[in-house]
């Protein structure tokens, strides 16, 4: 009888010893979505001239961008890198979701940050074989490394004629042999409550690329913009308001 009681007590003791550290570990899921001022954009929306902004009517034919160092920051400032890098292609369903490489505890977090593109240290030329084979590389003469974004489409010019546009973002070439990184960091300092069913949604409002803080007029832009450091800076600045985050 004594043994049974002792065993029961031991069991209770072990169970009650569960600390905060034993709370459930989760691998947050990610979902990447696109919208035009709130209207969802899917691959089926491509090619049709159906979007409008201050500069006219346009279509989307390509949208790929790269995020790196997607990091969750806990209330005690402990940072957990969830995703090293991820290439999102609006037409590739498999790229529109992924799962964290690390686990975190369920609970509240105070911030989510990520880098749009690779930071300077990680923008290592030819280092990422999965990106090399999809031609995500940025040319040597423009600073090497990798693209940050490839966004393309067509727009109607003043004569109502279709013209192509290509908004490719990457390292800025200031002059021959002089380059400046063009990645940018987005930080969402808001309470994030994560549980095992949580899905972190990273949303891109494509319309924002054209208007905030710089008005971007496709009619007056000179393409390609890749070798144009001013245009590259405009794109980077406009990128700051493009993203939002949600927990589903």
């Amino acid at each position, binding site marked *: 009888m004594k043994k049974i009681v002792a065993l029961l007590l031991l069991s209770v003791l072990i169970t009650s010893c569960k600390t905060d550290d034993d709370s459930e570990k989760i691998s947050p899921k990610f979902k990447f979505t696109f919208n035009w001022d709130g209207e969802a954009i899917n691959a089926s929306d491509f090619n049709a001239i159906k979007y409008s902004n201050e500069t006219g009517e346009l279509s989307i034919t390509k949208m790929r961008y790269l995020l790196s160092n997607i990091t969750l920051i806990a209330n005690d400032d402990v940072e957990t890198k969830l995703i090293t890098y991820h290439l999102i292609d609006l037409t590739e369903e498999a790229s529109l979701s992924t799962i964290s490489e690390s686990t975190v505890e369920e609970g509240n977090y105070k911030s989510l940050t990520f880098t749009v593109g690779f930071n300077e240290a990680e923008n290592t030329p030819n280092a990422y074989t999965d990106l*090399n*084979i999809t031609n995500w590389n940025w040319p040597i003469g423009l600073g090497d490394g990798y693209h940050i974004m490839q966004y393309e489409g067509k727009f109607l010019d003043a004569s109502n004629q279709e013209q192509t546009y*290509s908004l490719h973002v990457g390292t800025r070439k200031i002059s021959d042999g002089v380059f400046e990184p063009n990645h940018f960091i987005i930080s969402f300092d808001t309470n994030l409550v994560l549980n095992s069913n949580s899905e972190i949604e990273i949303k891109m409002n494509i319309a924002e690329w054209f208007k905030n803080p710089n008005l971007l007029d496709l009619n007056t832009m000179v*393409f*390609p913009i890749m070798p144009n450091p001013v245009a590259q800076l405009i794109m980077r600045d406009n990128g700051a308001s493009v993203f939002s985050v949600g927990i589903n």
Partner: protein
Amino acid sequence: MKNYLYILFIIAIISCKSDSESYVPYQNTAYILAIPQIFADKLPNPVIPNSNPFTVEGVALGKKLFYDPILSGDGTQSCASCHKQVDGFTDDVQFSVGIDNIEGNRNSMPLFNMAWNLNEKFFWDGRSIGLESQALDPVTNVVEMHNTWQNAIHDLKNSSVYQDLFNKAFPEQTAMDTNITKELVAKAIAQFERTIISANSKFDKYLNGEVNLTVDELEGFNIFNDERGDCFHCHGTGNSNPLWTDNIFRNNGLDAIFTDIGLEEVTGDPNDRGKFKTPSLRNLVFTAPYMHDGRFTTLDEVINHYSEGVINSSTIDTQMLFVAQGGTQMSTLEKAQLKAFLLTLTDNEFITNPDFQE
């Protein structure tokens, strides 16, 4: 007495065991694909399906089948008839002619580095998924080998050598019923095709630090990678993707109206009209004529197309940024320099490599 009957029954069962049940499959040898260092450094692993593992015997059988006209309807054409090693595994005519003297409507595609086509879409219009699927097509294509698989398999079974070669290449599959099937034919050919690798051009050697490029070749490389040529978005930046293609389908501005609708024929999507697979730029010197319909005889014509011959249409690739002015408008010197660079992608060893010969 009952015991005797029982023992006799057991003996009868044991003695009925057929040869096939006692068959010990041939132990074939795993084939280790020699991956060039430049590929190992810059590309993901090649596609080698679990359902078709490499074996020495499988590759050897695939090569024999590739060169054997036995697969064609009248025994006159093999895969190699339109995919000649000396031509970078394509041929030198606009349209290949099949066994019935009928021309196809697309240029024979060069064959190399196919194991790194990670989307696994083959043919100019991507209609086959996987090399094993692709290899089935030409045998029954009425303008190519114009055979039936029933006939082809019959001929293979009646040959004096193939049953043994199939048994050795696919011992597990053939042990049970000693069959040769079209699926095994395709698997063997796919194994051989995956070994066809080209990675030793002058530019590869330049990247390895073995040779230098001339001033014109280097400037051509710069033109390739900037707005003067604007080639890199489809063919890679050169130092990053040794395939020189991303295997994506594009309308590169050849026509305003398409008689051959390309990818649309497969997807049914009008947005895919006139899109064809982006080919590699390796070995261009061997693979003329160019484009899906072989319309350009020379490399100069190709360069002229991208410089001033691009034609707009509703599905034009939006990376053809200079379509409004017909192309990138290269100068004569720039064209010559770009051509000089493109010729550094020639892999002379590839077209004489005995590993790929009959």
